[in-house]
């Protein structure tokens, strides 16, 4: 029930993000979801893509430092309280969220939230026990 996310180190300077998207485009890789964490010096781009292997190979070839991390993708109804309920479940059991990002496929339908946990096993078990819809990798890559 894990989803593989790739992350890329970016220096905080003009054109680097564009270079990543150019490389992925040339490799025919589609971006499903992304988030960018930034500091004054550098950024970390996190991506869920259609083809991890292809994306990683192309980016490394392009000179980027690429990492892989397991994250959890959860589907929630795109309505008030959707995220709040999930965070409550995690909070009660003291499961910390390192970071998260979300995207909506079609307005008014379900939203997908990507979570990065320290303790991914416990998090997945908790979410499933509470009938939260956890998506598997294959589903997310194809979204």
């Amino acid at each position, binding site marked *: 029930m894990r989803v593989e*996310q790739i*992350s890329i*180190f*970016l*220096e905080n300077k003009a054109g*680097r993000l564009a270079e990543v998207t150019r490389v992925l485009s040339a490799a025919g890789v589609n971006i499903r979801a992304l988030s960018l*964490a930034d*500091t004054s*010096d*550098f950024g*970390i781009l*996190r991506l869920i893509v259609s083809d991890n292997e292809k994306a990683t190979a192309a980016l490394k070839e392009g*000179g*980027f*430092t*690429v*990492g892989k*991390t397991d994250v959890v993708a959860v589907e929630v109804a795109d309505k008030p309280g959707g995220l709040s309920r999930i965070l409550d479940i995690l909070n009660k059991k003291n499961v910390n969220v*390192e*970071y998260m990002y979300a995207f909506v496929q079609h307005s008014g339908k379900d939203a997908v939230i990507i979570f*990065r946990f320290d303790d991914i096993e416990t998090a997945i078990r908790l979410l499933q026990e509470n009938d939260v819809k956890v998506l598997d990798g294959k589903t997310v890559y194809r979204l």
Partner: protein
Amino acid sequence: MIYDEEYETLPREALEAIQLKRLKNLVEKVYATVPFYKRKFDERGVKPGDIKSLEDLSKLPFTMKQDLRDNYPFGMFAMPMESVVRIHASSGTTGKPTVVGYTRRDIDTWACLMARTLSAAGAHKGDIVHNAYGYGLFTGGLGFHYGAERLGASVIPVSGGNTKRQILLMRDFAPTVLTCTPSYALHLADVAAEEGLDFRTLSFRVAVCGAEPWTENMRKEIENKLGLDAVDIYGLSEVMGPGVSVECVEAKNGLHVFEDHFIPEIINPDTGEPLPYGKPGELVFTTLTKEAFPLIRYRTRDLSVLHHEPCRCGRTLVRMGRIQGRSDDMLIIRGVNVFPSQIESVLMARKDVAPHYVLIVDRKDRMDTLEIQVEVSEGVFSDEVKDLQHSERQIEKDIKDLLGVSCKVRLVEPKSIKRSEGKAQRVIDNRKKQ
């Protein structure tokens, strides 16, 4: 004002006679007492008796910084420990410092040379010396301290740091002579200005600046902002500490080397061949009077030039030009000696970062800054910001622990550091442009 009129104005012939006599004694002594020198002399097939003129000096082997490291800590001492009354040390290149010792007579000689130094800078009995060189293992603080006392001046042993308090003391104690690094002199003026004080209204007449390379432009800036005469001094702990050479305030044109105690040479750093007066090259010193830690032809790696034209101050001592750089890649950052290889060893020891790095040295608000850009590798990369920042702080701490210098580590993308053909450019020193 010349402190030691007799020795500082000797006719060349008389000076050379003294040098030769002292050199012969020195060579006999180190051959007999320091195994390192005996071995080096024997390897070169030279005996103490072969030194019959000053020109014969070039027959003697060089002493390198590495030799001092190899004989750490006390292997180069020519006197038993009972005769050593003081030990100083300079920052080392492999974690180990360079250790030097002084006998009671060495301390006395040093105080005398520092009295000469201060006197050449225009200081005299009755002056109040604000000594902001660091006290401790570093030779700067105590070297100036003893010299000022010998001169008959009053010393304020304020040492480095706590700049606001220093300004307060300057206001209240009315010191007339400032001794500190050139960058700290400018920093003092800036902090004074922040406190609403025009440094030029203080009682200072002269600043004696050294321990780091500086330029004529910096001298002008110091003199304008601080309202005093600024003179350059030179010394290194291996040779003695401060008190090896000094500019006279009359000419401010080259540093008089106290040749009755040290023989300076300029050599071609690649071939080791001695160069004539006027030709730039690497400075080499032989100590003539030191007892505990004598040095034969010590290669300083500092680049300079020697001039022997007579000086208007009346000293007959040869003058060395301002230090023009290094014949190796050593950097001096806030008074600390740093070799790029030391930074590299810290990075290599971590195993998780690539050994691709560049050191960017700059001067901000008068203080040297060191930024180390390191290419991020998969080993150190993480999808979390806090992990990467933690790695940066860890490397900074490792470097601070080993070298004693604070720096900022910045991770950069792979291949973003320029690879050059052959030798990689490891250092960008922006201070030189200032």
